[in-house]
């Protein structure tokens, strides 16, 4: 009886960043047995905020916490020969290594895919980097804004006459992590039949690029290049201010233009000058003025369910705390509570999607630094107490 869809898959997560950590967390969420392996100083993500009550302690990074749920944790210094030998001893017993170091770094330590696959041909190594393992930019450094820029999305984000605009947060890193988890789960299924692993080369820039369907294909189909939207013109499809925030409305869906006029209580919308899409584009600013005036004293929370009655494509700009209290997410059991050894009880975003037979389970909090060293090295690899102490003294763990 398997409880998780990926139960029995053994994963070492060597990543220190957002993308790799998220990838390995997703594998853990759906049943894989994941061990986070960090340098003795801790993964870089432990030094990234937000922190629990703003205390920058390595076991209090909320970013680290949320991306390392369901994992065990050990420390291992891969820059020592002993550390490298320990990883090689583990290699035959594991199915997946997730890593996000600069291309060539692990190989320079004798821990590249080829070396490890020689010890275990079924091993899959998932490498997530800004530009991929090979190619003229592969050694270049990535950052969130650079991935967006080179992945085309900034060329159509923001408005004309101003600089292109990046997405908020770390969407590119999360995308890299999710796409890598997808490539990994498919490789794992494939290896059920071939017994062979893969080195999976994920480029975060290409993850972003691959979402640019209309932007990429326009050029080879027509010679055209897409651009950011004009600064003026109708706000349909963009956030519009109302009494207590912003809403967003898209034409189409199940609602007619007449429905929209009724919803906004704006008979002027039915005038000839707004009769079709072309006229609405020309008279966009006037249309915006009328619509925004009509919702000036209406609440987004009143408008949202009402729009659904009209079968409108409608959204409201929610803030993080509104999302934390969202009844829809509550009904989907999206947030769960977990006991963290340092932070105590915390509510965490947990379940990405539902599986009917092997449901998501939150079984453990993120590991504190070196939390499971004894279990891994003494119980698992059978180092004796003296050797274990020596590993610690030599800064191997």
């Amino acid at each position, binding site marked *: 009886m398997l409880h998780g869809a990926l139960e029995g898959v053994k994963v070492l997560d060597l990543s220190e960043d957002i993308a790799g950590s998220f990838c390995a967390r997703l594998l853990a969420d759906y049943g894989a047995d994941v061990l986070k392996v960090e340098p003795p100083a801790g993964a870089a993500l432990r030094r990234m905020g937000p922190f629990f009550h703003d205390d920058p302690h390595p076991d209090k990074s909320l970013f680290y916490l949320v991306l390392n749920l369901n994992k065990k944790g050990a420390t291992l210094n891969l820059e020592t020969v002993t550390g490298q030998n320990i990883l090689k001893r583990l290699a035959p017993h594991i199915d997946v290594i997730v890593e996000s170091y600069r291309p060539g770094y692990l190989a320079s330590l004798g821990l590249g895919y080829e070396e490890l696959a020689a010890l275990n041909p079924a091993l899959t190594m998932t490498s997530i980097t800004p530009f*991929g393992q090979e190619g003229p930019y592969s050694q270049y450094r990535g950052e969130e804004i650079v991935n967006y820029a080179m992945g085309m999305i900034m060329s159509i984000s923001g408005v004309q006459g101003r600089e292109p605009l990046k997405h*908020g947060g770390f969407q590119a890193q999360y995308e890299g992590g999710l796409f890598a988890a997808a490539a990994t789960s498919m490789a794992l299924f494939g290896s059920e039949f071939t017994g062979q692993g893969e080195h999976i080369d*994920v480029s975060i820039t290409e993850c972003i690029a691959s979402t640019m369907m209309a932007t990429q294909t326009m050029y080879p189909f027509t010679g055209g290049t897409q*651009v950011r939207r004009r600064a003026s013109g109708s706000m349909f499809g963009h956030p519009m201010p109302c009494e207590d925030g912003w809403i967003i409305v898209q034409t189409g869906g199940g609602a007619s233009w007449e429905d929209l006029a009724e919803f906004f209580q704006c008979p002027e919308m039915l005038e000839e000058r707004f009769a079709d899409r072309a006229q609405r584009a020309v008279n966009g600013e006037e249309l915006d003025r009328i619509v925004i005036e009509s919702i000036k004293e209406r609440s987004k929370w009143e408008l949202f369910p009402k729009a659904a009655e009209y079968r409108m494509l409608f959204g409201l700009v929610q803030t993080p705390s509104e999302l934390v209290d969202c009844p829809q997410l509550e009904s989907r059991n999206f947030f769960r509570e977990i006991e963290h050894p340092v932070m105590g009880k915390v509510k965490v975003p947990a379940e990405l999607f539902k599986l009917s037979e092997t449901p998501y389970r939150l079984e453990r909090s993120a590991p504190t630094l070196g939390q499971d060293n004894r279990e891994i090295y003494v119980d698992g690899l059978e180092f004796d107490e003296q050797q274990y102490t020596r590993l610690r003294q030599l800064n191997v763990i």
Partner: protein
Amino acid sequence: MPRLPLEGIRILDSTYVFALPYAGGHLADLGAEVIKIEGPGRPDVTRTGGYAGSFPENQAGEEWWNKPSTYNLLNRGKKSLVLDMGDERGRDLFREMVAVSDVVMENFTPRVMRRWELDYPNLRKIKPDIILVSNTGYGHGDGPYSGYPAQATTQEATHGHCWVTGYLDDGPAKAGASFVDFLSTWSAIFALGAALRYRNRTGKGQWIDIAMYQAGVMFLSEYLMDASINGREGGRMGNRHPYRAPQGCYPALGKDQWITLSVGSDEEWQALCGLMGREELATDKQFADILSRRRNHDELDEIIAEWTATTDKFDLMHLIQGAGIPSGPVMTGRDIHFDPHYKHRGFLERVDFPEERGVGSRFLMGRPYKYSNTPMSIKGPGPKFGQNNEEMLKELLALDETTYQALLDETIITTTPTSGEPSPQMEPKRAVELGLLGDYDPDYLQKLGLV
């Protein structure tokens, strides 16, 4: 040829628009037999209205519904079966297809599959180990928004993305593309790989229930934690970074050309000052450490913009990266077709359409990942509407000629959509003048080597 992971897997892909159709296209790359199912009067919107992308040479022409760029990118390598699911006979044929398939994918609003008795409990009666992949705006279940209409543009606001995106001096903004759709695309592929492995080991199928809203919210996890623990609401940062400075997007040489860069340490800042020939700034107290650089970020932006504005964006990238600082140009839909890195990685694949399609050869994006032992490629363009009707119904389901003809006569199946119009196309030069297009190359086919 190495064995592809999804060899021998048959997928009924009854999905529309972007999210799951694109998943289906990627599953075809991975070796699955993916059968796209559309209704006679319900061709996918990527064939018709505003979601179609571009027509070849901007001309709709004959059988225009088989030509759009977005349709062919998303639905590459699939087969097509047109079946009227609104009719009981159509649904019966669908059930027969389910009996010989491994996976069903659908993105109807929650009530539709229930009403048709094609929800998971019913599908399981037909094929006990079937895997069903559902994608909806807000997810199945009894939540207050489960029945709400949804699509990516409006969800971007609702799932919190707009709150954190936008210029510093302006309100919340939408990102350029239909962003949240792709979180469902890749969630579906991830979940399906895991579910197939599970089925292989236990003989059991399952139901994968994906909600775009939930995926979008997940991608703001650190904001949710900061809100619930520290009571902080986050917000818009423009192009800036919470821990690095300066970071931004600056003008480069040429019309609407831009370069991004991100400085993460004092050493990187000193190196940038050297590149700009402004060594004196490196020791200026106003910019000496990260906190002072954040405080005086506006002033820094002006200094950097003045330096970048006279140099080509690619030259700037090589120069700045050469000094160890993350940097890259804002690349357009044209740029990636001529970029040596994209070219080296083979990200764009040349797809040759059969001659009768009147599309010629085009470049389409492959995959953002590679397998070392199992090379993959796009198998072919998206199928013509109803291209595999005969193969599916006569060969796979063994329908006789008379029955098949009757279905054709009553438009339960067809190869010509009974509704839908091609999206209106504007002459590109005019679109550039109006600011609807950034640029236009009349000789793009020559430049791409496609003629």
